[in-house]
């Protein structure tokens, strides 16, 4: 296999809040291949967004980032501002949850697109204008010429997200990080945006990280899925493996909480308890307090990352069998 595009090793993110320190992210190892589409799933506060903001150096100064993130061998963690500024948008682009508030309200769409084109491709005035039109066309915006002179508040959320995607494409990046790109949008628009991302990936061959709390959104749009819980990577597998044969109790819990479209109607299982307080210090498995099959060692020792199959890893002490959900076991029903 070719060298991966992006390699993440022992990445930690700590937030200083007065005297207290909370570890928001703690990822031992994660890789993304060129052109690969990876989904990152987790509930809010699981560190799925923070991981990528940390990689791009976009966290506030009260966050300290440790470990290593390399793109084609170039280190990002601790890199000088000038290096990061050259990389952002050029090699790694990022789009966010609420597109309408991610565009500057006082600048025209055309101005904002041209700015990106000037930064990454050195295009000016007429050339930038022509390329901006092409990009808007590529992301499926009708009447692109008129849109260039519109302000963001004149466009719908879906259109603004298309503009954000166009702007991300301006630098012809190797990797697009899409942080909950459809969460703020209507269901029909959601589907359109996801189809658009798929089309663009097919046409440009760029890699995609799709961050979402929605397993459904992730399932249909990526090759591989990483599940995060309380800042740790708990399970990582090819999409089909994860949905068919999840091994980590947390992943199984997420799947058990989804309604099945076929078969008899069943009561949905909710995961009891709440995400641990980020300040709490635990050497063991972060999910242990909510896990139906937790053993004493789970609370004390950090779970090993076990390789289950090709590209399938889970961080759990217990070797849960494939196809057997811990949430269907007798003790979970209590």
């Amino acid at each position: 296999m070719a060298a991966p595009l992006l390699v993440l090793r022992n990445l930690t993110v700590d937030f200083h809040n007065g005297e207290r320190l909370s570890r928001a992210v703690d990822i031992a190892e994660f890789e993304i291949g060129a052109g690969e589409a990876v989904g990152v799933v987790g509930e809010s506060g699981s560190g799925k967004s923070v991981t990528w903001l940390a990689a791009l150096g976009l966290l506030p100064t009260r966050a300290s980032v440790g470990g290593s993130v390399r793109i084609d061998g170039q280190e990002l963690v601790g890199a000088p501002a000038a290096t990061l500024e050259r990389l952002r948008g050029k090699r790694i682009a990022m789009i966010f949850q609420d597109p309408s508030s991610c565009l500057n309200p006082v600048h025209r769409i055309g101005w904002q697109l041209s700015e990106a084109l000037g930064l990454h491709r050195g295009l000016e005035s007429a050339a930038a204008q022509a390329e901006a039109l092409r990009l808007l066309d590529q992301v499926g915006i009708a009447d692109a010429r008129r849109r260039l002179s519109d302000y963001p508040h004149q466009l719908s959320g879906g259109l603004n997200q298309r503009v954000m995607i166009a702007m991300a494409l301006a630098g012809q990046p190797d990797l697009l990080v899409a942080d909950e790109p459809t969460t703020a949008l209507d269901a029909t628009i959601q589907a359109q945006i996801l189809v658009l991302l798929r089309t663009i990936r097919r046409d440009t061959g760029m890699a995609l990280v799709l961050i979402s709390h929605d397993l459904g959104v992730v399932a249909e749009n990526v090759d591989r899925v990483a599940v995060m819980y309380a800042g740790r990577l708990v399970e990582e597998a090819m999409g089909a493996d994860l949905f068919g044969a999840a091994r980590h109790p947390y992943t199984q819990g997420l799947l058990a909480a989804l309604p099945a479209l076929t078969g008899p109607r069943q009561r949905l299982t909710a995961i009891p308890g709440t995400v641990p307080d980020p300040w709490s210090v635990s050497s063991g498995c972060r999910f242990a307090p909510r896990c139906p099959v937790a053993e004493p060692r789970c609370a004390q020792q950090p779970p090993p990352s076990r390789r289950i199959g090709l590209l399938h890893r889970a961080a759990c002490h217990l070797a849960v069998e494939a196809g057997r959900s811990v949430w269907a076991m007798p003790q979970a029903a209590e």
Partner: protein
Amino acid sequence: MLTFAVSRLLRAGLTILFVMTFAFVVLRLSGDPALLIMSVDAPPEAIAAFRKAWGLERPLWEQYLAYVGHATTGDFGKSMRDGRPAIELVMERVPATLAITLPALALKIGIGIPAGIYAALHRNTFADRLTMAVSVAGFTMPSFVLALVLVLIFAVTLGWLPASGADSPIHAILPIVTLGTAGAAIMARFTRSAMLEVLGQPYIRAASAKGVTWPRVVARHALPNAAIPTVTIIGFMIGSLVAGAVVVETVFAWPGVGRLLVSAVANRDLSVVQAILMVIAAWMVSANLAVDLAYGWLDPRVRGASAGGH
């Protein structure tokens, strides 16, 4: 856009009419100018003659209608003291007031805005805390206290600057500094919070994420947005250019509108007080109109809203 402008102008006119009416009624209720100007022991015939000369014996509504009628032709009555047209007395004082309030406004903007931006960009550092501490001191100190402190230091102790009067441009320095200090402090605090608000917006992070360098993020993405709320404060300050120096003019014996107001009130020179209030009201209303126009220029969302109103 035309309807917008017309409605704003009508509203401005109504505001001025309201101020005119209010000033008229309140001043007539506050005491008899004849007794004050003529003194209480003047012969009754003299007082009656004074009242007749100024129309004070007529019913209030008649006086009011006559006043408004004359006002529409630019006649705001004559000073009861020296018989000159009141508006003329006021207008000849305006340049002196502007001679200290305009440089003070420049000081407020020139120091306040850069200090606020600097503090916001260095949030929670020593420099930020120092700037904010100085600004708290600046705007909590009453202007007459600051004026006296400055006089004590620069006029009495050091002898560098004159303590009062208006004989030369040097005389304007202490009044300007006194006026500018509090305004610069308010401006700094306001700019800082406007800037912090904007820096926390998602589009700032998105701009960084697309590779824009930090100085450019600040200059092209943050500042134009932070300018919108800041304009409100500048508008207030422009509105108070004519009326905002009453205390300072009195302390430094500066012959401006403020000092004229104080003496006119003390002398019950009703037409002069009313003329001053009219000039102030007209100025404030114009400043507000200017702010509204500036909003439209700075904020495309407001522009859209007013176009929608059309």
